[in-house]
């Protein structure tokens, strides 16, 4: 079964993927741990941002990788979900600054109590 951006219960499927599987996807996958350090950075995202995974993996997501998400619209939502021990699965319209160009995207924010990896998924919006 193909993995698409808006598949229900997506986190479980992503958890089961190898990094090669993730690199085949046509949307960006950023996975990060409880300390916000990036653990997963797939090829689509790497290509779009112009950064190789070596520069990104292990770094805190909201300060050293994607500071544009460090506000109440994204980072705060993950923080709240963690604090309230609640599941988070929301898709929002956002603008990323990929290679300093404003790019409209949909972000899907995934976090569930007990799951080690939280995800930000990035899908480019049609222009």
């Amino acid at each position, binding site marked *: 079964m193909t993995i698409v951006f808006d598949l229900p219960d997506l986190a479980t499927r992503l958890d089961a993927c190898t990094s090669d599987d993730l690199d085949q996807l046509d949307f960006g996958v950023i996975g990060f741990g409880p300390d916000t350090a990036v653990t997963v950075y797939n090829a689509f995202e790497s290509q779009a*941002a*112009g*950064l*190789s995974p070596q*520069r990104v993996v292990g770094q805190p997501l909201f300060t*050293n*990788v*994607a*500071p*544009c*998400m*460090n*506000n*109440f*619209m994204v*980072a*705060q939502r993950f923080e709240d979900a963690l604090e309230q021990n609640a599941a988070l699965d929301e898709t929002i*319209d*956002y*603008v*990323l*600054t990929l*290679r*300093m*160009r*404003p790019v*409209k995207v949909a972000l899907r924010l995934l976090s569930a109590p007990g799951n080690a990896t939280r995800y930000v998924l990035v899908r480019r919006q049609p222009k």
Partner: protein
Amino acid sequence: MTDGLAQLSAEYEALIQFLYLAPVGLVQLDADGEIAMINPIAAQLLMPHSRDGGLDNLFVALQDVAPDLRSQCGQYAAQSGKICDGMHVHLHAGSGGAKRMPQILSITLLKLDARRIMAVIDDITEQVRRECRQRQNDAWLNAVLTGITDYALASLDAEGRLCEWNPSIGRVTGFGPEAEGRTYAMFYPADAITPEHARDRLREADADGWALDESRLLRADGTAFWGSVMIAPLPEADREADLGACGDGAAYCLILRDVTDKRDIAERRRREAFSDHLTGLANRRALFEATSQELARSRAAPRPSAMIVIDADHFKAVNDRYGHPGGDAVLQHLAAILLDVFREVDVVARIGGEEFAVLLPSTDLAHALDLAERLCARVALDPVSFDGQAIVCTISAGVTVALDGHVGVDLLIKQADQALYAAKRAGRNRAVAFQSECIDLEAREAIDGV
């Protein structure tokens, strides 16, 4: 060759990451505000203000909080140079809210040439708080230590009335012995201070050890001067000693200085930071600060504070038909009427593109509603002349009141906003008072589109 390419690509990646991680917002835009390049911190700071969810245009992204950016850039005549340097933009009234929400942005715009502008955007919320405290300390030292050539020294009773006249009062203000027993508010223009404000300063002096105010004052002959007024509570021992001279006993000491020559610099600095470029009215920052101060004061001394939010009707149609200059003329015209209708003590501000707000201290709902209704009627009868044509414009107004200080600035403005949109829904060109069953703000967008 391959090595060279690999090195170039590594350098490119390092450069990209440098820009990604620069802890300050950077944007390159064209003269119309269209964004060509933008780094992540700029997106982080701007996204929460984008109405349409996009970041295509900087002027549009900031239109609700810095409505005069477009005109500032348009009016900048030089071929290149700084259009503004560290301009403060106030985002929210600062009533707590979400943890990560910045309150104040600093914006610097550098014009590179006719087509390119660079913007630097920074969150300076904490920095401003620190500087504000520092400035208060400086003001105190300045008032006490420097430049005193002449001053009036008077003692006030617990109610702020002058205990006795002395020659220094005569020298600085021209008032004679008849001033005895009158409140120190007599030095202010009649509509520039309310009795409640006069009492607030005494209370602040009690709380902080001193209260300092700089504003326009009047001499006995009606001429104006720029005065610095400092009030400090007297130590208990001095109060007893003074009992004989003053009925209720002297409770405060008042030092009044004529600082007219220093005023130009201070006033210019104040205007730059607190006024709207296009209309000369107060800006959001000034309104938020004044409102939160007034609400804090009315917690200590309960009295009603009214808020009127005003929006020009069908303003988009004016812009479409007469262009931005026509729209600007309408805004300036409205600003002039507002200044004429309201008192000096009221704070009249432009808070959005075509949105204005007025804080009316010590004013109840009925009175504020009456003023707002008269304002609507006057605007409707007073067309703007622009380019040889008369533009007829109407406004809608929403009115609310805080009966004491136990309501936040955000809520007060939100209530007035809801009343405003009830006025829009009821057909515009009218004022409506806030009721808890007013339409929800959600309905706002639907009406905005009309």
